[in-house]
């Protein structure tokens, strides 16, 4: 800290500066500071609900955990549902004697043959 001449003629720690510091110091010593600290914290606590980001900060960790748990459950459910669906499809294929694709193509071929026959035989 610089020691240039301050208010009085004798530098920073002269009598005048000390008197000024004493005049500006609060009365009551340590009790004043303890009281002030309590009052500041009480005011801050009473405004707690007005501060959205503090509410968010408080719930950030539980919300993150809940989100992660939901993502794990959703992933498991999707995987399980896919497995069930593919198993059912295989069972259906195993159970049927005629493949659906073959049936469809046979039907189409027969219809086309009928049209040709009707044309040849027809008047």
């Amino acid at each position, binding site marked *: 800290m610089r020691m240039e001449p301050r208010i009085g003629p004798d530098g920073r720690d002269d009598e005048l500066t000390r008197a000024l510091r004493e005049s500006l110091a609060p009365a009551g010593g340590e009790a004043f500071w303890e009281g*002030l*600290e309590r009052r500041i914290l009480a005011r801050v606590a009473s405004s707690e609900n007005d501060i959205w980001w503090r509410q968010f900060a408080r719930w950030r960790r539980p919300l993150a955990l809940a989100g992660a748990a939901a993502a794990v459950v959703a992933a498991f459910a999707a995987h399980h549902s896919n497995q069930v669906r593919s198993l059912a499809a295989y069972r259906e294929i195993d159970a049927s004697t005629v493949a659906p694709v073959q049936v469809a193509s046979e039907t189409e071929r027969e219809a086309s043959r009928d049209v040709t026959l009707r044309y040849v035989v027809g008047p």
Partner: protein
Amino acid sequence: MSAPTAEPGHADAERALVREAQAGSEVAFARLVHTHMRRAYAVARAICATHEDAEDAVQDGFLHAYKALERFRPEQAFAAWLNRIVANAALDIGRRRKVRDADALPETLSVPQFDPSERSELRGRLGIALGVLPDRQRSVLVLHDVEGYTHGEIGTMLGIPEGTARSDLHHARATLRERLRDLWSER
């Protein structure tokens, strides 16, 4: 800040404390209040004419700081940031008081008070001499000569250019020396 020089370890610990407070820790914020309230009060007292206004300014300042904590970047100096907020709160209170005083009857005008219990001649004379200084000059004088802030820091706190702070200090000292000249010649 030049007045209270922070050690590197202390700065790291404070940064960690600020981060905890930003994450929602009330205990961390309470520790910041405990560490900085005396300095904040000194800044407010330099600006406010009365002890009561200074106390209100400190409370307002900490409340503003708490609400704005999310926007504070921990690589900044917390004390400098807080003191700017407290100085703003003190200036606001001063402005509101001026408006109230302007509306009030002349006999109810408030005058700056500097410890009514003081008895010594020096302190009594000092109180009177400070009372005649313009508000800003008084603030600059106390912040510089009593609290040890630099002109630049005072300029930032009060929202004035550094040169203005320098010139205010010069005028304030000249006025005080003039008013208290006989005290020096007596010694």
